[in-house]
Each structure stands twice: as structure tokens, then as C-alpha cells.
């Protein structure tokens, strides 16, 4: 992807002249983009202000154009907690009442997965702009329905794929697509935890509502709650869609009545033969979360924001002496040890993709969302990336359930890539 394509991809057509080396992300996030919407205001309603919803609320507080005017949750403790973050916001316990509120311009939907489709369709029908949390929907068909409705609605429709807005990802993906690290040979995604993935439940009758992620009626488990963060990496890096997915899932440790796997391993294969894996285990956390693009000449650690050359440049033990002598400093140089050898690749500290970069793209995503609403322009590619990100999570889950190698049905393809 060259810079021009990149600009198109993330909706910054008018910003082709911006200093991308300094700020290579959405037009709406740049000073120029922000200037175009100065004084504008987007009034938000938050549907489902639980932990994720409140995270968005805290980020919205840093967006000058955003104002939270309404909150909705049918679980009173969440509504109370969210109300403390936005005391002036009206409170609802039925999202349809919030959608009827003419003071609400846009909604953030951060509810359990099985509710995404219905709430999004209703919100778009009510004329609201929508930012729905990922994964997009519970089924691939629902994703398609939402995508089509969003395109028809004339409203702005984002899905919370914040990595698309993370400057580190954007910068390194630009380099990957330009072949600066050599051809992509593999993509690895994993997410390891060591806990039961449960939330505390004040009353047994709330178990399924609060721990909805563990029950198949509401969630597709690790594939929709964790893989959805990561599976777009392959498509983004390679500029193509996987042709098949296979995998296996099971109940390895947490055999506590949950209905979604506690261990999954999937392999997605692209047309050029490159494989992308997603693995998740929640009974061992040693490797944590990782997203890696393996190229012929370097390994990119997307989550860590660093890349590692296959032929790392030797580090220096005494180079700092130059600076010290320049400044008249006489100090102890600590470097001596046993032989450092170039082949000790594991000790290579790597190179920061964007030194000093902070955040995960969530704030930039909200800035871009506001910018899109105020300028009336749905950024291209954002919705398409989210669609396929979700669809391939769901196709992977189907492969696990059926224990088959699956390909994407033609009827679920959209005009993208």
C-alpha cells in the first residue's frame, strides 16, 4: 500500500498533503482535520455502558466535539457507574427510548454480541450514526445485513476496530505493504490468559446476563471476543482475503458449564499460501497477547510496536562514550560481559516502530468518528475491514464447531479486496 492508497484507505482523501511521516492516520485526527470540525458537536448516547462502554466514555471526554447526553443499560449498577462519568446525561433502561431521543445524534453500542445487529439496525433506522463494538455481529448473515443497512442509511457507521486507527499499526502496515521488510511469509496472532474469564455475579439469576461471553446464545467465545481484535491483521498486511480456515477447539481446563471453548487454534490460508494463525488459551498466560507479521527480512511485533531484523545491526557497548566526551562526562561504561554474538537473535532489542507512541487507537477512532459525522463523509474501508474481520472470526468458529475446512460462501462476499 503506498501512501496515497493508505490515505484513501483510512478516509483521508483530502489530507493527501499532510505530513504523514509525522501523523499518518485519519484526517479527522490531524490538526487540519480537527480544524475543519472546530465548534462542531456530536451528542452521544451510550448503549451498554459496562466496562467497554465506560472506556469509550472516558475517551470521549478527551474529544472536544463529543458530548454524552444519554445512557442506557438494563443493568442498574452499570448505569449508575456510567452516570458518575456523565452526570448530566439522561438515563434509560430501554435502548429504544434512547433512540427516540432527538437530542442524540450518534450511539455507541457496547452490548453483548447477540444484541449488536438488532440495536444497530434500529439505531440506523432511527437516523442515528452508529459506532458498534466488535465483533460486528453474532452471525455472518447478521454482519452482511448490518453492512448493507449501513451503506444504505446515509449515516456514519463504524465498528470498533481500533487497530485501524492505531498510529503504530498504520505506520508499520504501510511499510509491510510496500515490501520494506520483504514478502510476508506468516502472520501469527495469539491471546493467552490464565483466568476463568468470569465476572463476579451478585446473584445466580444474573449469571447468564453478566457472564454472557461464556454462553453460546450470546457469544461465540474466544473467536468473537478476542480473535476479532486480531484477524484483520492478515488482510491488512497482505491486501487479500483468506481462502480457507481450519482449526480445533475444546474445553481443556475450564470445564465449569461454560458453552464456549476455553482453547482454540485456527489457521487461515491466503491465496498466496501464507498462513495466519489465531490461538487462544485461557489457562496459561505466559506468552500473553501477540500479533506478529513474519516477513522474509524482519519480524514485526504489532502489539509491542517493534520490529526485529533478520540480520540485526550489532548494538554498541561504547558508542555512548562519544556523547559523554562531547559533554565532558567521565563515567563508568557498563558493557563488558561474555561474548555477544550476532546469532543471539533472541536478545535483539528490536527497533521501535514509532517511539513514544501511546494509546491503542481507540481515541483516534472516536475522533475520526466525530469528524466523519460532522463532515458527513463515511471513511472508505473502515466498515469493510470490520465486516471481514468479523466474518472471518465467525467462519473460524464455524470451522471449530464443525471440525471442517471452510471457505467463505460467495453470498457473503462484498465488493472489497
Amino acid at each position: 500500500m503506498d501512501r496515497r492508497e493508505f490515505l484513501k484507505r483510512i478516509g483521508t482523501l483530502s489530507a493527501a498533503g499532510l505530513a504523514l511521516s509525522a501523523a499518518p492516520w485519519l484526517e479527522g485526527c490531524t490538526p487540519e482535520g480537527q480544524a475543519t470540525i472546530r465548534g462542531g458537536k456530536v451528542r452521544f448516547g451510550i448503549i451498554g455502558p459496562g466496562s467497554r462502554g465506560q472506556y469509550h466514555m472516558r475517551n470521549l471526554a478527551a474529544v472536544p466535539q463529543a458530548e454524552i447526553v444519554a445512557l442506557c443499560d438494563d443493568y442498574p449498577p452499570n448505569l449508575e457507574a456510567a452516570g458518575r462519568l456523565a452526570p448530566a446525561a439522561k438515563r434509560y433502561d430501554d435502548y429504544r427510548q434512547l433512540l427516540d431521543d432527538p437530542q442524540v445524534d450518534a450511539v455507541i453500542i457496547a452490548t453483548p454480541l447477540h444484541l449488536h445487529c438488532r440495536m444497530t439496525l434500529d439505531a440506523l433506522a432511527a437516523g442515528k450514526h452508529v459506532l458498534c463494538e466488535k465483533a460486528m455481529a453474532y452471525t455472518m448473515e447478521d454482519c452482511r445485513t448490518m453492512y448493507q443497512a449501513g451503506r444504505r442509511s446515509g449515516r456514519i457507521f463504524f465498528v470498533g476496530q481500533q487497530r485501524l486507527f492505531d498510529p503504530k499499526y498504520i505506520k508499520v502496515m504501510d511499510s509491510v505493504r510496500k515490501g520494506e521488510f520483504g514478502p510476508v511469509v506468516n502472520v501469527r496472532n495469539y491471546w493467552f490468559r490464565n483466568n476463568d474469564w468470569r465476572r463476579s455475579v451478585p446473584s445466580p439469576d444474573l449469571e447468564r446476563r453478566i457472564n454472557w461471553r461464556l454462553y453460546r446464545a450470546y457469544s461465540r467465545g474466544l473467536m468473537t471476543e478476542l480473535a476479532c481484535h486480531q484477524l484483520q491483521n492478515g488482510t491488512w498486511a497482505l491486501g487479500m482475503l483468506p481462502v480457507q480456515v481450519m482449526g480445533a477447539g475444546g474445553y481443556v481446563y475450564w470445564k465449569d458449564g461454560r458453552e464456549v471453548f476455553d482453547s482454540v487454534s485456527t489457521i487461515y490460508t491466503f491465496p498466496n499460501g501464507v498462513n495466519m494463525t489465531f490461538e487462544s488459551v485461557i489457562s496459561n498466560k505466559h506468552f500473553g497477547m501477540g500479533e506478529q507479521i513474519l516477513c522474509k527480512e524482519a519480524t514485526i511485533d504489532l502489539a509491542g510496536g517493534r520490529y526485529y531484523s533478520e540480520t540485526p545491526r550489532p548494538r554498541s557497548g561504547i558508542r555512548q562514550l562519544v556523547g559523554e566526551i562531547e559533554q565532558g562526562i567521565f563515567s563508568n561504561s557498563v558493557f563488558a560481559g561474555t561474548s555477544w554474538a550476532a546469532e543471539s537473535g533472541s536478545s535483539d532489542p528490536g527497533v521501535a516502530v514509532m517511539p513514544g507512541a501511546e494509546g491503542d487507537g481507540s481515541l483516534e477512532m472516536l475522533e475520526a468518528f466525530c469528524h466523519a459525522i460532522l463532515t458527513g463523509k463515511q471513511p472508505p474501508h473502515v466498515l469493510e475491514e470490520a465486516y471481514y474481520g468479523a466474518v472471518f472470526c465467525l467462519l473460524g468458529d464455524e470451522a471449530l464447531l464443525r471440525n471442517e475446512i471452510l471457505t467463505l460462501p460467495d453470498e457473503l462476499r462484498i465488493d472489497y479486496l
Partner: protein
Amino acid sequence: MEFEYSRANPRVTVAFASFEAMHTVLEGVVTDLDEPAARQLFASIETRVREIESRLNRHDPASLFARINASRGREAVPLDEGTYVLLQLAELFRRTTDGYFDLAALSDRSVGSVTGSGSVTETGDMAGSGGMAGFGGVTGVGGATGPEGVAGPGDKTGPGGATGDRRGAASGAAAGGKMADTPGCVLDPATRSVRLTGEGVRLDAGGFGKGYALERIRPLLTEAGVRRALFNFGDSSVMSVGTHPLGDCWPVGAAAGGEPFRLVGSSLSISGLHPDGRAHIVDPMSGRWVGRRTMVAVEGRSAFLCEVLSTALYAAPEERRATIAARFEGYRYTEIEM
């Protein structure tokens, strides 16, 4: 080569250069040279190190060491003067370290009984061989002394006092590998050549190459008029000239901790496990990798001798280190817990 030159401090100019060599990186800081002279100096240094690497890198099929190893002891391999002297010194150091420094330590182990296991002497005159100087005093065992006073033929015996028998050792080891207490090769001064003592013998510069290269750099520094410099070869071999321009030494700390070494024209070598925990030094007696977690640091005048001695002391049993080290006057060793 990466080169950097700074005049930012009006009292002292500083040049830095680094380049990859011997599977790691050599870097140096030199002060008080003008930029063209500094560039020329580092270019000369790189040329010299490349030349040494081209001889000693056994992984390069075109290198002299690779050709010696490929001969499998079936024929003598002619040597240049520098390598001939180097192998003489290596044998001297093998004996003065009771065999714990052995450039043939990576050889296949000998199979079956081997006769003639007494220390094999090289057959010619080591005196006047030139090349390396300034090691300081090495008190040899069995009468061998340092390079500045190398004893003549017939005057060098092994640690046990056994007189070598070239034919016996060569014929015995030729069936396979190498006995622990025999040299891996014998030198012939008449033809200035070397012959391995067994098919499985392999010469390897891993235990001394960086220090040797640093020592061969020192004359270039002297010729260029350098009075203050610090060179670091892969962190494990360090050589200084004079002192830091702003202090009374070049203070060099070990990454593992402890008091810094205060180098004043001296050198430092550290041997132990690789930073990633891999063992890379072989005990010549057992043929096994040494996995000891205590590093050995040796400080003294010669970078070459420092590396030889740190390699040997790391491989040697604890109870023998002091005895071995005492033979190397002017060199002190320190053990560092990793």
C-alpha cells in the same frame, strides 16, 4: 564500517567506528586524532582484522584454519609467518594452562587407547619468531617462558614433565580424535607448516581470536600516535590505550555487576556462558561444554593473553585456577556471578 567524528568538545576530539567481524562487532573510540587520520586508522584496523579473520575463521572454507581442518592430519599445511607464530604461542599457552586452553578443544574425542600421550613438542625453534610482543611476563612450566624469551627446542615439556613424542601421538590419535593432554597439531619449522595429530582434530579460534585481533591492532595505534583509545570486541574482549581523556583510567563495568575495571593501557577479557545462557566453551579435558554460571574476567596488558587465560580459567576446575593464573605475571583474574 560505521564512523563518527566529533569536535563538540573543544578540548578533545573523539572518533568512533564499528564494524562486524568474527560473528560479532568490533568498535573503538580514539581521541585526539584529526578526522582524516582517524578514518585512515580505522580503515587500517578493519583491513587487519579482516586479514586475521580470513585466516582464523574455520567456518569460511577459504580460510587457513578451514584448510588445516580439512586436511584431517593427512598432510602438512604450509603457514604464513604470523600463523606459525600464533600456533607456537597457542601450544605454549596450552601447556602453561595445564591444557585448559586448547585451540583444538572442539576436536572429536579420541577413541580407544592412544599411545604417546605425553605432551608433544613442536619440533623447531620457537625463539625469534617475532610477531607478537608485549604480553608481559609469562612464567612457563617446564622451563618455557613468555614470548619475549621463548625457550628453544627440547626445553619445553608438558605439565607432567613428560617429553613429547610426535610420532607416538600422531599415530595414536590419527585413528580418531584427540587426547585431552596432547596438542592438536605439530609444527615443522623446516617447512613452516602444520599437521593435525588426528583426523578428528579441529582448530578453532573461538577462545582467543578476538583478543589476538585486538593485540594485532595495538601496533597500528602506536604508529598513528594514539595515546588514548578504547576498543571493544563483542563485549568480551576489551583493550585500552592510556586513559579516558577526562579521567585517570577507562572504567569498564561488567554487565553482571561488581566493581568496574579500571583499565590504564590494559586489557580485559570475560569468559562464561553466552548472554542468552548458551554454553560455548569446551572443557578440553572432558570434551564437554562448560555450563558454569560463574564468569571469569582477566585483566592484564595483552588482550590476546587475557582471552587465552579467561578461556582456560573458565574451563579449569576451581581448585586449579589460582595455580594456573599465578604463572601469568601481571594478569589478575576475577570471578563474577552471572
